[in-house]
């Protein structure tokens, strides 16, 4: 008896696996199954065949019966009856996957002959990590891109992203963020391997000031005008970066209340080593005493009279600078080199949200109280799903923004996510 072996492989989208076959909602298998059946029928022609299904993928096995039913129905439409247990023809369907996508593969066995067809399926989406604890941190993704993001500033109708070589303006639309404009920063020196940037709203909230290694950019925008009309000017500069933002004049009750929290905060600037990834330690606007070289610094507001500068040195030490004295903060052994102040209103009202983790690829953020020289955990760690590469306090003080380089399996693009982290009191 002559046998022919036809192999047909169809790869299609398998998102939304949780949808049950019994549900009235359209099955995610419908389209892939129809495509597969059509291609199998084209190879096999009308007749009988045995249908077998095996699962080499991470697709839940309970999804298989639904797929089998759909395939049988679709094959029947094309004249292939799958009830033929004694048929020499076999349709062997395999659910498989690679690092990029899931595959639906059908081998149609009809003797020794082999043929192949394929269709792709959408990758599944990873569940959002949850957080728990006393004061609870929550994370909201603002924007995700495959381009490296160093810093970001959200305005009422736009988003400004600082990338290593460009400033990007995005407009808020009902469908999400839409890129409007890119402006080259125009660096003349090579960009470092750990590039950094900072961006602040200007004092009148009508523009921004952005710092990158060796360049400073100023931008202006009208809130009523689209980001495409915003302007920006960059120039070479070794001027110190603003590391503590002065109060921003905003309107509205909530904004005024937020601004009150920052009253007394004086602008502090620090010189950045443009050939490296840290600040030299030379600062102005403070008490005249410099810090050791540091990665990050912020100002704590304990009272109108007590506002130490908190700095994370490149030696890993976390220290405060107050009244000309440097004092070490204990309880910071797990801290990474990014932190920002959060005016949550919980507990003492202000916490420091610090990065830090057991592994560089799965950073977390955690809130700490600093009533004195000891950091006391105030929340559970909030898993960020990747490496936190920057964090800063938003102008109103009630949230912290973070840039996270998301973990990507081999074969998938690295993603950068701009997240807003807020706190709720328990």
């Amino acid at each position, binding site marked *: 008896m002559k046998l022919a072996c036809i192999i047909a492989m169809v790869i299609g989208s398998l998102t939304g696996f949780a949808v049950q076959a019994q549900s009235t909602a359209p099955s995610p298998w419908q389209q892939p199954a129809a495509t597969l059946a059509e291609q199998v029928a084209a190879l096999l022609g009308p007749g009988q065949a045995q249908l077998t299904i095996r699962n080499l993928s991470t697709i839940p096995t309970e999804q298989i019966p639904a797929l089998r039913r759909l395939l049988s129905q679709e094959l029947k439409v094309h004249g292939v009856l799958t009830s033929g247990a004694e048929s020499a023809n076999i349709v062997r369907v395999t659910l498989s996957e690679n690092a990029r996508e899931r595959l639906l593969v059908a081998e149609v066995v009809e003797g020794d002959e082999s043929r192949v067809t394929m269709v792709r399926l959408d990758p599944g989406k990873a569940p959002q990590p949850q957080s728990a604890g006393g004061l609870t941190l929550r994370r909201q993704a603002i924007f995700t891109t495959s381009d490296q993001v160093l810093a970001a500033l959200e305005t009422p109708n736009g988003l400004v992203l600082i990338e290593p070589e460009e400033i990007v303006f995005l407009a808020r639309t009902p469908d999400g963020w839409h890129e409007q404009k890119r402006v080259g920063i125009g660096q003349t020196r090579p960009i470092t391997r*750990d590039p950094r940037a900072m961006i602040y709203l200007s004092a009148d909230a009508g523009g921004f000031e952005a710092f990158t290694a060796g360049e400073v950019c100023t931008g202006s925008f009208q809130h009523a005008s689209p980001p495409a009309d915003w302007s920006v000017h960059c120039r070479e500069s070794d001027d110190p970066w603003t590391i503590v933002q002065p109060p921003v004049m905003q309107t509205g009750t909530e904004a005024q209340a937020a601004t009150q929290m920052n009253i007394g905060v004086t602008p502090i600037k620090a010189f950045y080593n443009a050939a490296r990834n840290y600040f030299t330690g030379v600062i102005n606007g403070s008490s005249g005493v410099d810090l050791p070289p540091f990665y990050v610094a912020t100002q704590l507001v304990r009272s109108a009279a007590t506002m130490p500068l908190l700095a994370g040195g*490149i030696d890993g030490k976390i220290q405060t600078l107050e009244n000309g004295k440097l004092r070490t903060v204990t309880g910071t052994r797990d801290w990474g080199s990014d932190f920002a102040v959060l005016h949550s209103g919980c507990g003492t009202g202000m916490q420091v949200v610090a990065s830090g983790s*057991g592994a560089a690829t799965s950073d977390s953020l955690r809130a700490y109280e600093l009533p004195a020289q000891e950091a006391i955990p105030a929340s559970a760690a909030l898993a960020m799903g990747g490496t936190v590469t920057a964090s800063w306090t938003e102008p109103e003080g009630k949230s912290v923004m973070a840039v996270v380089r998301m973990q990507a399996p081999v074969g998938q693009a690295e993603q950068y996510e701009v997240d807003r982290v807020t706190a709720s009191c328990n």
Partner: protein
Amino acid sequence: MLRQVVISCLIALAVLPAAARTRPHYGGTLRIEVEGDPWKVPDGIAWSLVHDGLTRMDSNGTAIPALAVRWETQNDNHRWQFWLRPNVQFHSGWPLKPSTVVLSLSGSCRADAGCPWTTVHAVGTSIVFTSDSPMPNLPALLSGNGYLIGQAESEEGKALPGSVGTGPFHFVGLQNGAETFEANEGSWQGRPFVDKIEIFSHKSIHDQWLDLSVGRADIVEVPAEQLRVAQQQHLTLLTSPPVTLLALAVADSSLLSNPNIRGAIALAVDRSALSNVIFQKQGEVTASLLPSALTGYSFLFPIERDLNKAHEMRGGLATPALTLAADNSATMQLAAQRLALNLHEAGFNVQVANAATAQHKDLALIQLTLASGQPQSSLESMLRSVGVSTPVIENTPAGLYKTEHEFLETHTLIPLLYLPRAYAVSGRVRDLRLSASGSPLLADVSLQDAQ
């Protein structure tokens, strides 16, 4: 499902965990020990320290700008034009010029299946490649180690050693028994974090692990077959996904020009025994060229041994003694002996020889490295490395399967195992990652104790 879990675990292992996340520190000397020659062409660890390519691969397996900032294809992929990055200098101080790039690339065409292009020449600040065959994968292929750009001649026209490039480190020379490299302050990608790298070559694995344990080395090699031992010794490991294909190359000459004989050899090899006994279950048994993680279809190539069918295909032909060549390493020689035993059971008389000294090779146990995380260019690169210069035009899974299937049907190359590459590192090493081909990306490494 289990395979996917394993793949996920391996991917997770491909980035070194750090005790606490801080920004990378600048400074310090990184000490590496290797068993082979760091300058071995094309995969020696030194090449990518001192050289850059026109392109490089991102983590998505996409070619992105390196020494070329942009490129265009014309005439249905028969002509490509690459524009060079301005203001780049070789370590000698000589500027990167199109003519220098053309000279370097022309020198790359001497090995294996030659180059994908027919001609390469400079046009203004760009490089133009032309070919009689389409070159759909050229940007990806140019990221490979075989096409790194070096300065072949000095300003005066004198030949330079192959160690002058534009890469993140410049070669200083042999100092205190180590190949020594210093940070290139003017690297267009940014200065690397460590000041200096010392590579101690021709070190046995035993000596490497000993030096790691006493703090004399920071990165040492872990062969796949010793991964389990390394885990038992609690070494800090960085392991790639399966990237090295162990395969049996079969000459298409004399008796072996008979496709049935080659087919019989393919059916006689016992991949599982090779994996279990020689490689301590650290490999992925395969009969396909690309690993399952890249394609998802490798299960369509049967891996089972079938001695009866092998005998049937050999057809009782009396075969003269065949020579199976393998590298002189203990593991490769053991693997070759095992394969010789497999083939003996199918009626073949096979003698194992050292590849470096064998006069004649009917069979060769070879290792091929996956070029990138992109299946189409990886397949073309792999086929080129075994002398097949036909471009891989298809980019759909079905098309790739068809290309693989047609080549493997010739049985001139019999895939056996996919093996990971692994390294053990000291506690001072930070942010070490592996490329898609399993090579350590040393320019991004920093040292915990550097200040």
